[in-house]
């Protein structure tokens, strides 16, 4: 727990920070010594020649494109110290954006040579003591807000409806730098806080209770309930109700008249009697099938009270008119009306744990303090400091002191303030010397608990995590906590949010697909019934459940790509033409090779999210595999790309997608990238827009065979799945998966200093069989997850 700050301590730490910064500045300002001869030789013999071959065309002193030149420099020291330059080189090489596609390309090894050299020589990345990096203070995104509110207050709040969509960065919507907070959103946060507290904190005081006599409590002589009683069948139903508090009660009967949607003159008299004395009575007729409410008053005694419902036909229907029936829903008894007996709702005791407050200021204050502390500790996800606590108690008291306001109103007001506070809305982690990049500390146990719970649950820590954090034992029990958390139903969140955004399954139900083209059904309504939301939902679940299965059963990650089983219900199985699956429940189904399914590449979810509304897109599919499986996203297309239209003219209008792409790629400018993704996308052409198997497209046979940039040849999507799930490509996949999960877990993009850490996780996964849970353990145990450092340029501070 952070000690309360008093004014006396502040200047102290402030000066300390200044002195430290000054000391750092002294160390870093004069240039470090000239690189030693080996370093210089390495640069001049190995690195610089590659730069000359591939970069000088544009980045020499004469062209200086992007105001960037490698050609001349004062001294090697000055050259090496140009961190902005080398960071740009590192980023562009890694993303494959430089050299631009139309220029000749360095080999993979050469790229690695340079990026590795930059990591070692320029950034001095120390694999044994890595920079944990810095996560910007994170606002709760919509999902996290919803889940946190659920776990904190029990209220089911719909943040998707109430807040604008969160912006995404690096493919995820939980990135600190990108989650902005507009004035509009602030206004909405305040409204939401108020709404949530109004729903969860009962402030009205005790109320007069209502006893419900359901229609089903009543019986006639044949032991039947008053449901669908024909008007003409004059009938009696009785019930005895035990009453504890005698007195005057309000009676409210709710019945429905059924049987005809058109007017009829059929009518009957409905009467409720107590001990054979009428309490209320109404002539019932045709009323558009709406429910009718009848009110009255009655005096009840302590003990058993006998109620009777009678129904007696008044007027029969005319010829050709329909007959009516009576349906009794409920008869409510509210009382005693003199208020001699009042109760609090159950919900009241959930918040006001010690019951109603006493009538004395000191004990009310103490009670308010206890309630507010408990709520704030959980809402802030760490113990609240005394100063803030007292302010909140003061708010509660000032409301309590107002006329016509209650103790409960006061506590509610304090809760609203807590839910609008930045300590609730942001996941703030604090540290000493927040602007000293050299200051690395392990995050405290409360921060660790939040990092863990928002990673795996997209929500606040639960009681056990809080308990461990308070006892300072969480760090010592990480793996067992992860195991516990992953089998909790809340772990569904990591599937929804991580998988939903990584494999784009979130888009399956919203992406625009033309159902008529897809189903060949001309009637739009029918087409929508075939290609229904249920079916789309099953497609999304198929992929999500496979990952959930790998996670729960601790299976290897690459089984995602080559599983010989999948998850289906009847709808989806029919769509895939796999027989023998009945019912709407999704379940694990073994796949026979003749059913043409094997792992993610054959999932309809993938095919749908990479299709245009009316046709497949091999380019989008190829990019998906590069981006999300191999982790080698293609650079964006160059400006002024020649159009496929030109290719189409050359090829003639009957050209297949493969022929079109081949022509397009025959241009050198396009080839270098299209070679990377076209074969991947074309291998998936056997699946139509909706993921159904096809052998032909527009009458022409599909040729899915191809070759990867890395040389592996395949004849169809199944061989491709085998290639991607073994050997070097499997390593690529582990790395891709690890990087994505790492980004999601930390809420920031990966930086150069993360590379050695990720390398290590991938190497360990290789050795241990690629188990997903193992990867999660290692991410949680990585320095970036465990530690934090001050803000600023760490290199400048280090040199």
């Amino acid at each position, binding site marked *: 727990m952070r000690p309360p*700050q008093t004014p006396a301590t502040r200047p102290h730490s402030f000066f300390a920070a200044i002195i430290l910064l000054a000391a750092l500045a002294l160390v870093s300002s004069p240039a470090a010594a000239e690189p030693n001869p080996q370093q210089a030789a390495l640069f001049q013999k190995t690195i610089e020649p590659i730069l000359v071959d591939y970069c000088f065309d544009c980045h020499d002193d004469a062209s200086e494109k992007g105001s960037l030149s490698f050609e001349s420099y004062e001294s090697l020291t000055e050259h090496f110290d140009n961190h902005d330059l080398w960071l740009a080189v590192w980023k562009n090489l890694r993303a494959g954006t430089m050299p631009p596609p139309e220029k000749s390309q360095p080999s993979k090894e050469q790229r690695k040579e340079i990026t590795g050299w930059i990591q070692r020589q320029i950034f001095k990345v120390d694999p044994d003591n890595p920079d944990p990096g810095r996560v910007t203070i994170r606002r709760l995104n919509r999902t996290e807000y919803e889940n946190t509110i659920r776990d904190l207050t029990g209220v089911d709040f719909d943040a998707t409806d109430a807040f604008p969509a969160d912006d995404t960065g690096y493919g995820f919507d939980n990135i600190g730098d990108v989650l902005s907070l507009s004035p*509009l959103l*602030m206004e909405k946060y305040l409204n939401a806080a108020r709404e949530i507290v109004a729903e969860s904190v009962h402030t009205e005081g005790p109320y007069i209770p209502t006893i419900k006599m359901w229609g089903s409590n009543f019986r006639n002589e044949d032991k039947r309930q008053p449901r669908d009683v024909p008007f003409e069948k004059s009938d009696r139903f009785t019930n005895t109700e035990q009453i504890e508090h005698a007195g005057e009660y309000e009676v409210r009967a709710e019945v429905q008249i059924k049987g005809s949607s058109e007017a009829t003159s059929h009518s009957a008299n409905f009467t409720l009697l107590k001990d054979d004395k009428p309490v209320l009575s109404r002539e019932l007729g045709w009323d558009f099938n709406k429910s009718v409410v009848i009110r009255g008053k009655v005096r009840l005694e302590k003990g058993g009270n006998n109620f009777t419902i009678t129904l007696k036909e008044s007027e029969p229907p005319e010829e050709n008119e329909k007959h009516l029936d009576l349906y009794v829903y409920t008869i409510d008894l509210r009382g005693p009306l003199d208020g001699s007996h009042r109760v609090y709702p159950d919900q009241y005791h959930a918040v006001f744990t010690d019951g109603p407050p006493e009538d004395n200021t000191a004990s009310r204050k103490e009670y308010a303090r206890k309630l507010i502390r408990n709520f704030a500790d959980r809402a802030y996800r760490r113990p609240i400091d005394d100063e803030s606590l007292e302010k909140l108690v003061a708010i509660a008291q000032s409301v309590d002191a107002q006329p016509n306001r209650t103790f409960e109103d006061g506590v509610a007001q304090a809760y609203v*303030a807590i839910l609008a506070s930045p300590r609730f809305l942001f996941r703030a982690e604090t540290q000493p010397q927040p602007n000293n990049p050299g200051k690395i500390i392990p995050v405290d146990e409360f921060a660790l608990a939040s990092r863990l719970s928002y990673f795996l649950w997209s929500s606040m820590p639960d009681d056990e995590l809080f308990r461990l954090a308070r006892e300072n034992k969480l760090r010592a029990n990480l793996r067992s906590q992860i195991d516990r958390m992953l089998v909790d139903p809340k772990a569904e969140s990591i599937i929804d949010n991580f998988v*939903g955004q990584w494999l784009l399954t979130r888009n399956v139900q919203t*992406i625009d697909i033309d159902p008529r083209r897809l189903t060949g059904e001309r009637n739009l309504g029918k087409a929508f019934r075939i290609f229904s939301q249920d079916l789309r939902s099953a497609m999304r679940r198929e992929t999500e459940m496979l990952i959930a299965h790998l996670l729960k059963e601790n299976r290897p990650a690459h089984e995602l790509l080559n599983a010989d089983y999948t998850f289906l219900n009847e709808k989806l199985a029919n769509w895939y033409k796999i027989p023998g699956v009945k019912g709407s429940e999704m379940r694990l189904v073994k796949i026979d090779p003749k059913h043409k399914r094997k792992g993610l590449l054959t999932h309809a979810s993938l095919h749908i999210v990479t299709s245009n509304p009316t046709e497949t897109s091999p380019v989008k599919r190829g990019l998906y595999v590069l981006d999300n499986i191999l982790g080698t996203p293609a650079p*964006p*297309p160059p*400006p002024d790309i020649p159009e496929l239209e030109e290719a189409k003219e050359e090829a003639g209008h009957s050209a297949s997608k493969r022929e079109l792409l081949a022509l397009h790629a025959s241009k050198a400018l396009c080839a270098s990238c299209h070679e990377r993704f076209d074969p991947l996308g074309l291998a998936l052409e056997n699946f139509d827009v909706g993921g159904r198997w096809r052998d032909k497209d527009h009458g022409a046979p599909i040729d899915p065979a191809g070759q990867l940039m890395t040389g592996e040849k395949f004849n169809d999507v199944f061989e491709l799945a085998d290639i991607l799930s073994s050997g070097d490509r499997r390593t690529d996949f582990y790395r891709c998966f690890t990087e994505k999960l790492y980004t999601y877990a930390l809420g920031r993009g990966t930086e150069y200093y993360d590379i050695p850490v990720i390398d290590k996780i991938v190497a360990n996964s290789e050795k241990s069989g690629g188990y997903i849970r193992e990867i999660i353990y290692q991410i949680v145990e990585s320095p970036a997850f465990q530690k934090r450092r001050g803000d*600023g340029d760490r290199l400048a501070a280090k040199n």
Partner: protein
Amino acid sequence: MSVNRRHFLRGLGATIALPTFESLLPQNALAAGKAGAIATTASGAPLRTAFVYFPNGAIADQWDPKGTGTNYQLNNTLKALEPHKKDFQIYSGFEQHWGWGHEDGAGDHARANSTFLTGVRATKTSGADIKLGISADQLAANQIGDLTRFRSLELSCDGVRKAGRCDSGYSCAYQYNISWSSATTPMTPEANPRLVFERLFGEGKDAAERQRNYDARQHQERSILDFILDDAAQLNKQLGRNDQDKLDEYLTGVREIEQRIEKAEKFGPLPDPHAPTPRDDIPEDYQEHIRLMYDLMAMAFETDSTRIATFMLAHDGSNRTFKQIGVPEGHHSLSHHREDRKKIDKIIKIDRFYVDQFAYFLDKLRNTKDVDGKSILHNSMIVYGSGHKDANRHQHNELPIILAGNGGGTLTPGRHVKFNNDTPLCNLYLAMLQKSCFQADRIGDSTAPIAAL
């Protein structure tokens, strides 16, 4: 208390705008119009400014008018505007220079959106360092936002956003926001009509209930704001620089709520739009959704709740389908039509669909009387345009731009004006903003205000 708070806010740094002067300006033009004041017409009515963005450009050979000056002919796409021919002018030849890729490569859709009202180069990033520039509407809001209950109104019909990456390495923030209050803060638009209504006119089944809810809320808000500002100040001391920037966004938001409370006291009772609260869901039917949003914009103007609005019909690159007009394909996929006439014809249908809705809006404004007896349309300046010419080749010049309204009698509607090809679009905005009486010499890449307004 509020004096202390201002001190504290100032201490935090630059991004928080403080009210500069207690106004000599008309507090509420409806109550007391004063001619010659800013954002006010000669007859003392409010002068409104709005920007409507439509996605993916328009097929030029069906959009471009025939002839110039007042004696011109509307082309097919704009036929629905024929009854309004005297209410708007068409401009040809505007360019958004930073819409082009230059050295940033692909990402034309993100740039078409993000440059439309800002005229600056968007930093190409998918996350960490979003940087654009303040947009024309927000520049205006900084000057005249104090005059109305709301500084500005941001609307959109994009309710659901895709997961994953946006356009070619640009953060989604660039693509889903056209209004930016600073280089780093997008003004998130609202897509749910009910929420827009409740924000403008309060929650409740009738005007009386809305007023009651509103009053109760104002009262409670004060004590909460005091607490959270103190809390933020305490937290702020313990944060690093980047974190403080994020917290500044929070403080700006809180400060706006404070200003709103102060304003509310100044402005008196809530306006009653004499219309029911829209139903809960976003309408499935796109036309109904668009029209509801236009209705709300009209109501906001009529009640003088704000004088500045932006409406992004859909983000550029939107792949929405238009089954109701016989176009099942996605708008974006179609827009890369490769000169295929069948596809072009479908895009034309979409272009006309959007223009039809705009015509509906103009009808509405022309049929609504303002305080000076003229129409709301007469007292407005409304830009309707796109950041692409024809999205097939991602051209950012010769943009389709319309300026509707008469600016309170100061514009020259009813003509077609043709410029040299690279006139910055921001030159139009600069002229408009100067018209609403504020001194500005630059918006984005503007060079000089256009003379032909």
